[in-house]
């Protein structure tokens, strides 16, 4: 297991990366903090399993973070799906509602706040791989080669995912603007 000083170095070097990536996925500071915490606990526990010849520490941390965020979103989705049933038994159950008013992203400071929030919600509704490709290339501004490495796939596959994601976003934007 990694010692305390080493862990603190890893934390200080990657905390911004992990927290911001979590924010792009969950669009909420509280959940992003919780997931960041879980990610670093996992990094601490599994540091000895990281093989630097297979992936750099940064890539490995990226993968752990993405997996945690996707698991969180899946759990939130199933909670929402069964929210009606559980609300019959527990009156205080609070199912998550995905609308722009629920977005709590401190990185959004532009004048087009609402447009950006809607865009982020559309991205959140994409299939997992397309969502990851868009977040890493368009928000995190990572080169496609690095994205391919993080996603453990080829650059061509990333290009294809981006293309499909753009088509879906375009379609959904047209639908929302048409309303």
């Amino acid at each position, binding site marked *: 297991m990694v010692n305390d000083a080493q862990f603190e170095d890893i*934390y200080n070097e990657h905390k*911004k990366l992990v927290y*911001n990536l979590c924010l792009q996925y969950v669009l909420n*500071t509280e959940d992003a*903090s919780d997931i960041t915490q879980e990610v670093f606990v996992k990094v601490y526990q599994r540091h000895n399993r990281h093989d630097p010849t297979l992936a750099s520490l940064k890539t490995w941390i990226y993968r752990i973070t993405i997996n945690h965020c996707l698991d969180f979103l899946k759990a939130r989705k199933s909670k929402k799906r069964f929210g009606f049933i559980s609300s019959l038994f527990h009156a205080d159950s609070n199912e998550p509602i995905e609308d722009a008013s629920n977005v709590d992203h401190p990185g*959004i400071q532009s004048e087009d706040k609402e447009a950006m929030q809607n*865009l982020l919600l559309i991205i959140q509704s994409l299939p997992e791989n397309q969502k990851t490709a868009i977040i890493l290339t*368009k928000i995190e501004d990572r080169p496609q080669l690095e994205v391919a490495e993080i996603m453990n796939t080829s650059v061509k596959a990333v290009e294809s995912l981006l293309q499909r994601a*753009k088509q879906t976003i375009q379609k959904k934007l047209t639908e929302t603007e048409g309303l």
Partner: protein
Amino acid sequence: MNIDNKLDLLKQIKEVDAPPFLLTRIRQQIANLNNVEAPVKWKWAFAASAILILALNVSIFFKSDETTASTGKNTEIENVVKSMNLTNSNNLYNE
């Protein structure tokens, strides 16, 4: 508007700092993980149930030895098998 221009909006998202309390919380969680130990009551209950299961196994083992040793019961079973026409032959319906 072109989709690429729309997506360029996302580049305006600013990078933010992680909350300052996070490292303390992570350290606390790691410390809690290291200190997770089964309560003493559970340990005693586990030991008692293990001894009980072991004792049951030993008693069943010796009892089954006694029953196979007594041949009287085997002849009784053979009588039942004969009276009910039970056989281990593949010849069905006594053809």
